[in-house]
């Protein structure tokens, strides 16, 4: 039986917000279909009606809410019960009480690791036993805002580090501070040198903005350690210049994870060298996250990190400026790019990612005057393309292992210059399991996209589950 449809009409009840009103519509296998979908009989029966085992999915938010409230109630009654039990224990079990008062150092250190070190040091007044508990803490959280004046903080750091037990290694240091570089350079150096001398593994420095006009420069001594595995540098507030970090001279042979937030990636010397190689002495880097970082004075963003398996670049500052990414993506498994303009050269990076398993392109502009955007990733299993700014003319995807595809099929707002609809060209998506297509409602002339949507369906014939996030899809059945 073959059913032809006369017209496929998509319309959106504009009154409601999309996220609060979703209809997940689903296409039926041919023999169960109450309504039809056009079927083009090709050599491989390439029609969506050959999708196997499709499920009708309706998100029923009222049920979900009910479930949640039941769970909440259950949780509440359980904790009430527990309170009762606990009261019994309190009154009768002295042995219990005794044990609680003998908290092991591991637990005390773990609790104190979530608190400011000033607080931790104050616990020395709790009892005789507590006098030295803090001195062997492996976590140091320092924050100058817990002090009224800077000299007080400076004095505190000096005393705290000299009273600490020097035989215990430092595991993690978190330093939050507000102020200008010159004021902090000495204190920062003291802390960082102490941490590096005590084999620190995690270092986090969060710099709150005090004035938005100047670069905040982290001192050079921060960028060389044999033991450091995880480094986070952040400027707390968005300011015009962000923080300045002299990346090329970094020497972190053990570093595995790097997070930078609001940083300006530069050569740190202002020599204007536009084709530096970053991270060449950080051979173990596996995870890099760059959030709101500026690359705007680089022509080439050249990164040498042969073991890099996870890369996220979110909301680069001056997203309109497009340095050529020159990265080695051979080991990369997860790549997330958001709100980036991908230019011709950068796009080519995706044409040979042998180990890539997850790829997310969110809010990206993928049209740079080129005809095709190539993604060639033999291992890719999840591909997400959401809220695109502009589509390429065509996506050539060679992803034989792809299991999950999530895509916005149209751009959120209509653009006169550029492509507004997802055009997919594939060499077969035989492993496809779940497809989630989302069409935003602010579309102009929806009818013209219907053939393209149907064309897209043809490419996805092997999917087992297909979820369409459209408002409502109405299919009129013809003869």
């Amino acid at each position: 039986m073959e059913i032809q449809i006369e017209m496929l009409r998509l319309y959106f009840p504009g009154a409601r917000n999309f996220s609060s009103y979703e209809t997940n519509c689903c296409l039926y296998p041919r023999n169960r279909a109450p309504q039809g979908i056009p079927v083009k009989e090709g050599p491989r029966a390439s029609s969506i009606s050959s999708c196997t085992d499709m499920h009708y999915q309706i998100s029923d938010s009222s049920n979900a809410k009910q479930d949640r409230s039941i769970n909440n109630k259950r949780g509440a009654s359980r904790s009430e019960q527990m309170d009762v039990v606990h009261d019994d224990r309190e009154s009768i079990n002295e042995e219990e009480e005794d044990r609680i008062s003998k908290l092991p150092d591991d637990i005390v250190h773990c609790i104190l690791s979530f608190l400011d070190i000033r607080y931790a040091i104050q616990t020395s007044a709790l009892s005789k036993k507590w006098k030295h508990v803090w001195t062997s803490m492996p976590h140091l959280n320092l924050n100058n805002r817990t002090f009224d004046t800077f000299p007080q903080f400076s004095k505190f750091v000096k005393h705290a580090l000299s009273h600490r037990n020097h035989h215990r290694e430092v595991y993690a240091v978190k330093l939050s501070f507000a102020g200008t570089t010159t004021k902090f350079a000495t204190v920062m150096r003291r802390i960082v040198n102490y941490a590096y001398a005590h084999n620190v593994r995690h270092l986090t420095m969060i710099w709150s903005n005090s004035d938005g006009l100047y670069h905040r420069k982290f001192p050079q001594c921060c960028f060389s350690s044999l033991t450091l595995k995880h480094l986070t540098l952040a400027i707390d507030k968005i300011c015009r210049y962000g923080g300045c970090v002299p990346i090329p001279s970094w020497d972190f042979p053990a570093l595995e994870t790097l997070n930078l937030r609001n940083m300006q990636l530069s050569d740190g010397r202002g020599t204007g060298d536009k084709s530096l190689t970053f991270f060449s002495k950080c051979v173990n880097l596996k995870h890099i996250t760059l959030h709101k970082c500026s690359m705007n004075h680089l022509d080439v963003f050249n990164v040498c990190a042969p073991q890099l398996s996870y890369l996220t670049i979110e909301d680069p500052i001056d997203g309109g400026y497009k340095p050529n990414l020159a990265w080695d993506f051979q080991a990369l498994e997860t790549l997330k790019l958001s709100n980036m303009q991908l230019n011709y050269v950068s796009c080519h990076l995706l044409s040979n990612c042998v180990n890539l398993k997850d790829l997310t392109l969110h809010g990206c502009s993928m049209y740079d005057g080129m005809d095709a955007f190539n993604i060639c990733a033999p291992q890719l299993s999840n591909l997400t393309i959401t809220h695109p700014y502009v589509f390429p003319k065509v996506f050539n995807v060679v992803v034989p292992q792809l299991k999950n595809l999530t895509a916005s099929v149209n751009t959120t707002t209509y653009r006169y210059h550029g492509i507004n609809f997802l055009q997919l060209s594939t060499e077969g998506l035989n492993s496809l399991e779940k497809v989630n297509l989302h069409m935003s409602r602010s579309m102009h002339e929806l009818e013209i996209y219907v053939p393209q949507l149907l064309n897209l369906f043809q490419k996805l014939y092997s999917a087992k589950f297909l979820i369409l996030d459209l408002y409502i899809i109405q299919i009129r059945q013809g003869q």
Partner: protein
Amino acid sequence: MSKKTLTLMSKDKQLFNIEEHLAVQSVTIRNMVKEDGASSVIPLPRVDSETLALVIEYLNRQQAPEEDEDYVKKFVDERGEIPTLLELAQAALDLDIKKLMDAACMKVADLIKDFTLEEVREALRIENDRTPEEEKAIRDEFQWAF
């Protein structure tokens, strides 16, 4: 394939069954299973039955990895009493379940962060074994921190 079940015994000799693949989130149990197959009952002499029931509930959670963090946070939030949380942290330490221990300790830290020293003593049941003079001497010694 039938799932292998382990039996854990609390301090007060109550028995709890749990599937092995869930129990091995505990590094302590994982090592026991590796060493001797852990066919018989695993005794946990420092964990009482109420706490062990909580630990079992935690180990049995069926969360997607991306929701796990929120779940763990909610799990400890619902047990907002400091003594319960400390018991839980102690059990998590013995069983080597890092995520649970961190979450319980973080919650305790969150609860006590604005406490005065006297309130901390009360919450953690610490006896002040110093005289007021001795306490003052300590405060003077660390006056740069107070």
